[in-house]
């Protein structure tokens, strides 16, 4: 076999070269060719790309960060550190041979990107199928959220500016400022122009939502080979009006197509061009054909159906939806059910061309309000009924104020972990109240995260706050009632200790 290797060490004058020599010798002794790039103090001559392309595997005998590691992406490798190569080069070469023999191109997907510091995924390859599907999905969602945040907040800001600049019709007028005008006659003194620039920038960010969602779902499944068909599929989905539903489908489709193609056993000559040309080309084509010819139309119809269903919801139905989403947000405080509700809200934001108070934005507001309730309520409860909580919980309560205000539901987890059913029961009720109230009040929200920090972007923000406050009080009241019914022995012990300490203090 043929190997390329990289050696390096802290000083760069001894082990780097000893490792190189030892690997070359051990390789030759075992009938393999090893070509080493010594990244040491005496300068480093980069390996000939042809040698890298020709190599069956890579040996990293490096104690420093390997320079230009991406050159070796997609090849089987062992990573042993420089000392091992010096002390036991034959063993390292044997390990490298074993790595090549046991290598499937699917590993090529997972391993090198992780090693070369590619974008992180939330995927644990040992998890069950259901868990992995959720992890693939969440990887896509987590890469999409920053785009939603940037785009959503920019658009919301532009609408605020527009309403100052144009008056009541601002949110419509700002979308009608022609691009030509901004490019050729931008007036720095015109608030309208600033609003329009902000709007267009936000709009551009929003255009990435579905492709990023799709691309990174595929990336989570197939690693780097999934990116291209995933993004392409997402773009196709937008083009045919299949929206985020289509994006979800193309993400999974692209991921599995890319994974399948990358597992093909191909002649060595072709292997080099697989990741760069063959996989992106074929997988994109497959995804494109499937979307345009086969399933795109039904998905677009389903998307339209979902949108019109949501938009058709009114009055009590909307309030019910808010209550349900709120309950989900409060149920596991950042766990899977919470994330389902949150993802539902986020993907709604990805729908383009909605009115400012569209149902999708009202859902986002309801979900956000509900997610703020639990930590706030626990914080409140620790203040008004101190003696129901341990010292540690009282400390947690202080942090929970800020976490709750920032829409970080996880702030309530320490309380839920210590006393699950009382906290969760009250959290489900309180969050659900907040969710349904927001729906009833009609607040809408374009930003996917931020809590009170994005308050100015929420329509009817004072009512939004009222909803959060009511949910908080309801939950605090329930949790206090439940906890009072059955005193916590740890708390009682602590209280007793406190009293003794106070008595001692008094006598001294």
């Amino acid at each position, binding site marked *: 076999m043929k190997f390329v290797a990289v050696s390096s*060490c*802290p*000083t*760069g*004058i*001894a*082990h*780097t*070269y*000893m490792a*190189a*020599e*030892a690997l070359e*010798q051990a390789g030759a002794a075992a009938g393999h060719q090893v070509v080493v790039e*010594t990244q*040491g*103090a*005496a*300068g480093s001559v980069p390996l000939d790309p042809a040698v890298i392309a020709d190599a069956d595997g890579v040996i990293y005998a490096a*104690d420093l960060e390997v320079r230009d590691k991406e050159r070796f992406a997609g090849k089987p490798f062992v990573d042993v550190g420089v*000392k091992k190569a*010096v*002390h036991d080069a034959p063993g390292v070469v044997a390990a490298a041979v074993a790595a090549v023999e046991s290598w499937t191109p699917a590993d090529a997907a997972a391993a090198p990107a992780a090693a070369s510091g590619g974008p992180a995924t939330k995927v644990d390859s040992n998890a069950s199928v259901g868990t992995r599907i959720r992890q693939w999905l969440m990887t896509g969602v987590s890469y999409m959220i920053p785009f939603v945040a940037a785009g959503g907040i920019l658009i919301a800001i532009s609408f605020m500016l527009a309403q100052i600049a144009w008056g009541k019709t601002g949110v419509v007028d700002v979308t009608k400022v022609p691009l030509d005008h901004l490019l050729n006659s931008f007036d720095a003194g015109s608030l309208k122009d600033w609003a329009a620039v902000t709007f267009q920038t936000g709009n551009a960010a929003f255009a990435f939502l579905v492709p990023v969602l799709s691309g990174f779902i595929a990336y989570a499944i197939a690693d780097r080979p999934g990116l291209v068909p995933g993004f392409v599929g997402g773009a196709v989905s937008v083009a045919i009006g299949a929206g985020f539903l289509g994006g979800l489908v193309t993400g999974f489709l692209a991921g599995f197509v890319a994974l399948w193609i990358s597992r093909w056993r191909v002649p060595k000559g072709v292997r080099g061009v697989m990741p760069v040309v063959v996989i992106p080309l074929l997988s994109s084509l497959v995804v494109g054909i499937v979307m345009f010819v086969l399933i795109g139309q039904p998905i677009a119809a389903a998307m339209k159906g979902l949108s019109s269903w949501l938009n058709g919801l009114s009055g009590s139905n909307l309030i019910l939806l808010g209550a349900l989403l709120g309950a989900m947000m409060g149920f596991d405080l950042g766990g899977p059910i919470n994330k389902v509700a949150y993802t539902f809200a986020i993907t709604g934001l990805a729908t383009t061309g909605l009115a400012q108070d569209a149902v999708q934005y009202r859902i986002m507001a309801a979900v956000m309000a509900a997610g703020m309730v639990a930590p706030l309520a626990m914080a409140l409860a620790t203040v008004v009924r101190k003696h129901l909580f341990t010292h540690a919980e009282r400390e947690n309560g202080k942090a929970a104020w800020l976490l709750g205000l920032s829409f970080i539901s996880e702030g309530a987890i320490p309380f839920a972990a210590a006393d699950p059913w009382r906290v969760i029961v009250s959290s489900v009720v309180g969050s659900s109240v907040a969710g349904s109230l927001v729906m009833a009040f009609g607040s809408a929200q374009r930003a996917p995260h931020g809590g009170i920090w994005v308050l100015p972007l929420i329509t009817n923000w004072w009512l939004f706050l009222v909803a959060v406050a009511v949910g908080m009080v309801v939950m605090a009241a329930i949790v206090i009632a439940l906890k009072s019914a059955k005193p916590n022995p740890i708390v009682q012990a602590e209280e007793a200790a406190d009293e003794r300490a106070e008595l001692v203090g008094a006598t001294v």
Partner: protein
Amino acid sequence: MSSPLITADLVDVAVDATDRDAVTRRLIDLLVAAGRVTDADGFHADVRAREAQMATGMPGGIGLPHARSAHVTEPSLAVGKVPAGVDFGAPDGPATLVFLIAAPDSGESAHLQILAALARRLVHESFRQSLKDAPDAATVADIVTREVVPS
């Protein structure tokens, strides 16, 4: 062309020290006496710092303290034979052959090629054995000078 990597002055075939620090110090003193290291304490500190990162003992009874240091004037090698053995942290026991490699901090890379070549030779059992068998300082210096040729 600068002076050779090693001369007979830089070899001690009977170091009687028994700990890592003292052996290293003995070899540093040789380098100082030859005018290749300007500050014995400063260089010793640099070597210790390197040794602390990862022990330099190698299988086969080799110790390899080394450092790049501002106190070194030219790439140099000092060799000590320690008949009683001295621990350099190798997995298979104490070192009887200790190489102290001194590299200037500012040396341009061409200058350091000689050290790269030395490191590559050190891996070869035959090279190490010939040094262990060498009866005197001059032979050790000769072998190194003959065998270590920059590629």
